[in-house]
């Protein structure tokens, strides 16, 4: 064994141990590595630190928004209000700041409003027993419409709010910033912290285990003392808060309030969950898988841009890739095995 192999050995062992515990990581991991190799070979400057940094930055927005979608998927729901909440939080924050609110208070207000909206979606979908996808779509329409009416009524700029975000927020999402001397923007560090907290929450807390139990079988979960209703409400509240947080962070990134800033996230959070390998039917998966999904989507996008594909071309490839990955490892059982 030469020196290089020896240096690789611990990494290899960790990967093997991780895969032994979560075999579902394998397909996504293979895909990610394959894409990285393709990227390194075909795209000039793919391995540059500048490119890696910008990929991490883009991934952090998607990653934070996708945490909520992961929770929803784990309880067998889908949250379509995420893009609308991102856009609404984005314009509302700038509008609050323009009204003279301090940044801390404005952000707290936006996140609290989002929590209320999540609570509303969850309550309605529970009360009328309709798939959360439709309810969150309706709530999303209302939220983004109201946000725009409130923020731009009487102004000539339909849907856009102009203002200056606080310097630290811009700093946080700027590619030039560093975190404690490490050359990545603070938002990436925030994503890392949230990821660790989020995975711990799901794996180690009673509430987190309850989410899995409920997604697997709500009746059984109720019998063993999981409050199915509370779990459902909290999951959608968290999803709304994480979406709003993404919208807040995007204010720093884009430097103003643009209501359409959420649009690219209409289906990408679901795509990240699915490509990662979590089931949309509940009970199976986790945020670790979604992280992998986010990484795959971000690397794929960079590779496709590097290969000269236009955004629509990328969308086409993404559609095909979701089908291919899901066909590999997220097929459902035949009716005869469910009788």
């Amino acid at each position, binding site marked *: 064994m030469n020196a290089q192999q020896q240096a690789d050995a611990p990494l290899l062992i960790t990967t093997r141990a991780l895969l032994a515990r979560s075999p579902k990581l394998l397909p996504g991991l293979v895909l990610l590595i394959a894409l990285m190799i393709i990227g390194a070979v075909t795209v000039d400057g793919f391995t540059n630190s500048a490119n890696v940094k910008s990929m991490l930055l883009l991934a952090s927005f998607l990653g934070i928004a996708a945490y909520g979608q992961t929770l929803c998927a784990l309880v067998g729901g*889908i949250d379509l209000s995420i893009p609308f909440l991102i856009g609404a939080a984005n314009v509302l924050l700038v509008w609050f700041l323009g009204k003279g609110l301090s940044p801390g208070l404005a952000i707290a207000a936006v996140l609290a409003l989002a929590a209320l909206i999540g609570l509303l979606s969850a309550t*309605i979908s529970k*009360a*009328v*027993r*309709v*798939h959360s*996808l*439709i*309810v969150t*779509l*309706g*709530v*999303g*329409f*209302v*939220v*983004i*419409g*109201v946000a*725009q*009416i409130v923020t*731009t*009524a009487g102004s*000539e700029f*339909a*849907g856009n709010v102009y203002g200056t975000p606080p310097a630290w927020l811009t700093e946080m999402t700027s590619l030039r910033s560093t975190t404690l001397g490490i050359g990545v923007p603070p938002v990436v560090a925030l994503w890392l912290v949230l990821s660790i907290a989020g995975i711990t929450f799901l794996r180690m807390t009673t509430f987190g285990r309850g989410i899995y139990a409920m997604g697997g079988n709500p009746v059984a979960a109720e019998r063993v003392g999981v409050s199915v209703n509370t779990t459902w409400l909290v999951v959608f509240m968290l999803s709304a808060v994480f979406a709003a947080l993404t919208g807040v962070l995007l204010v720093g990134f884009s430097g103003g309030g643009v209501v359409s800033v959420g649009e690219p996230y*209409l*289906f990408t959070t*679901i*795509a990240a969950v*699915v490509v990662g390998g979590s*089931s*949309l*039917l509940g009970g199976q998966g986790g945020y670790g898988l979604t992280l992998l999904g986010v990484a795959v989507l971000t690397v794929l996008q960079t590779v496709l841009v590097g290969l000269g594909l*236009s*955004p*629509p*071309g*990328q*969308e*086409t*490839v*993404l*559609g*095909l890739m*979701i*089908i291919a990955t*899901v*066909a590999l490892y*997220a*097929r*459902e*059982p*035949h*009716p*005869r095995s*469910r*009788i």
Partner: protein
Amino acid sequence: MKPNLVRVRQTLLGYDYAFTAFGLLVVLLLVAALRGPKLFTSEGLTIAASVLAPLVLAAMAATPVAISGRGGVDLSVGPLMAFLNVAIVTWLINEGLTGVVPVVAFALAAGALFGLIQGLLVSLVRLQPVVVTLSGFLFLSGLANVIHTNGSEATFPNWLSSLSGTTAGIPTAAIVVAAICLAWVPVARSTYYRNLRLVGFDDRTAYASGVNVALIRAGAYVLGGLLGGVAALMLSSLLISASPNVGTNYTLIALTALVLGGTSLAGGSGGMVGSVLGAIDVYLIQYALATFQFGKSSEFVNQVANGGVLLIALLLGAVAVSLNARRRATA
């Protein structure tokens, strides 16, 4: 009660899922008559019919997929219409193929083929319908933009643009939609459709009683694709140009109309009547709102109204269901 009255009552109860949409329609027609009576002139009706046709057909296209169950949400219906619209313009009309036969045949065949692919992915490969139609959404909205060329477009053939006009004083778009609805009647009465509802309601029971679940379910996606093809023709006739980016909007409106019409995404219940009424409701809400002067906010007001009506319809539907259940329990 007289026997024929009983029959009328039973027929009506077969459509009880669509009561909310019907009640809303009556209210909205009154509002429209008060706020914007121009709707009921022959010109107003012609415009309304041509705008409504792609909406109604999109909602219809999403219906069999929803009935087929397992959370069948046809997210791809809008992008399918947008893609076929662009494909008709770039691949056929710009190349001089402007006849009725090639254009209609292409729209129907391509729509059905896409539906078949989605259907097979759902029923044979057994992927979650949401994932399949989500991928279809991304694939087609991307492809529509890829094949769209920003060059000069050849003139639209007369027959296609005249679908938005009138025939013998009646809006042609209304005739097309009525014809499609009539064509649906024998389908809705067929054994196939009964099996489809059974599969959507509970595919394990269907399988255990010897129904070919995979074939029946795939058929729903083919029907959806065919209807999507017709919707694309009416969309092209309305727009008279290639517009690759209208898909998302049609998907969202089609799903709103579907749910307003009382079709459940859980599968097995609901039907075309509700979707048609739901789509007309959505249009009338936008029409009524447009009579108010909201200026630059009008688009946002529309969004709030669409979302609000969808939520209210869901609540009303739930109240109706629980009242029904109580009545049955006491009877």
